[in-house]
């Protein structure tokens, strides 16, 4: 599904991702954890090329994203090709990034309609199905500012799902939420996982990781220091740094 090989990413002189190798299978749920600044968000953002990369390769369903080889030279791919690949990759942001000038329904249908995938009627039908799925059928006509944080994030998930992505990326989807509202969003994510959606999730919710993750990736200072099943990571981590980090967070 996703293959990352020898990925390096710099911000200016700052080496943020160092020789990252990671393969994610179809249907797998991978949780990424690690201290602040370790590069989790950046790695996720590279996966749909919101961040350009300096070396290495990222393949989505065996297609390279962002960079392609042409006549022996590596160049950025044309926007159109990039957009096509991006449709397969849904992304959910920490701050929701809903479109404040559109209703919930319009938020969900905007991209499918703009890209001419469906007509207005079908788009609305799909939107209603998705709102049912995330439990928000009654808020279709509301504007984002009229929603609670948990509701906003569920709309953001529905919006990403409307493009029928093959994989979903989540960047700390619950960390901007009031504690009582965290549960409703995690529940939607669990349902998605159960349906077999491929998911990559950056989160501090260790409970979710334990329960849902197939594998947990631990990052530190731009490197992946450990990949294993949640049981092993949480009970018998092989790295000292993993232990230290978990101690702080679980305390």
């Amino acid at each position: 599904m996703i293959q990352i090989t020898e990925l390096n990413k710099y911000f200016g002189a700052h080496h943020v991702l160092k020789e990252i190798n990671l393969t994610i299978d179809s249907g797998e749920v991978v949780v990424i954890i690690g201290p602040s600044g370790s590069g989790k968000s950046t790695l996720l953002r590279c996966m749909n090329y919101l961040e350009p990369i300096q070396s290495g390769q990222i393949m989505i369903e065996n297609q390279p994203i962002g960079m392609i080889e042409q006549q022996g030279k590596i160049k950025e791919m044309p926007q159109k090709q990039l957009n096509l690949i991006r449709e397969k990759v849904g992304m959910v942001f920490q701050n929701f990034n809903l479109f404040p000038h559109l209703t919930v329904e319009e938020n969900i249908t905007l991209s499918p309609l703009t890209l001419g995938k469906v007509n207005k009627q079908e788009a609305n039908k799909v939107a209603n199905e998705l709102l049912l799925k995330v439990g928000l059928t009654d808020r279709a006509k509301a504007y984002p500012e009229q929603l609670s944080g948990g509701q906003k994030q569920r709309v953001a998930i529905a919006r990403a799902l409307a493009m029928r992505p093959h994989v979903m990326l989540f960047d700390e989807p619950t960390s901007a939420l009031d504690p009582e509202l965290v549960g409703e969003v995690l529940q939607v994510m669990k349902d998605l996982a159960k349906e077999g959606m491929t998911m990559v999730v950056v989160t501090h919710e260790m409970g979710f990781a334990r329960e849902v993750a197939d594998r947990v990736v631990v990052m530190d200072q731009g490197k992946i220091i450990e990949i294993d099943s949640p049981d092993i990571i949480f009970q018998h981590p092989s790295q000292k740094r993993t232990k230290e980090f978990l101690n702080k967070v679980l305390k």
Partner: protein
Amino acid sequence: MELDFSILLQDGNLPLLLKGLWVTIRMTFFALCISCMIGLLVGIGGMSKNKLISGICATYLAWFRGTPLLVQLVLLYYGLAISLQIDLTASVAGVLGLGMYSGAYVSEIVRGSIQSIDQGQMEAGRSLGMSHWQTMGKVILPQAVRRMLPPLANEFIALTKNSSLLSVITVPELMRAGNSIVADNFKYFEIYLTIALFYFVVNFVISTLIRILERKLHVGGVRT
């Protein structure tokens, strides 16, 4: 100083002023449309990564914002006719000249408001598979327009008044109508105060319309 406004009712003065006002309103309106189009193009173009495009936009901004409208109008109307035999009518040259001038100011307003929209909005649009321009048109601009309105009010009001420079290229607008009445009867203060009142009313309408639009466009608000 005693003011004698009965002068307005004599010699067809008021009708002449009203005719001038109507010219001013018409010229301003068309110039305003051009100004918005140019402002949008140059404002967005100025942020382009393409060096050529952003260079052209920066040059446009520097020239049309940096030099006097009077000079621009004279070059456009007389300069083109004398040097290249391009003979624009006064109205066309006036609307074009005003529009291009004001467009430079509007472009800065456009750029500022687009840059003030949260970066996350563009990222969200792109990550949904929409292109840069699709996201710009459907997501960024509708939000930016709302923020442009207060400075646009300033600019449009200035535009109304800048239209008085069109008298230099023989457009019979309000200020020129006033000047020609004053030249006749020397009742400056009566005439100028009347002109001021006319401009005031036009500008009041502009700022009120924009304030209504502001409220209508309240991002995410209930619009019904």
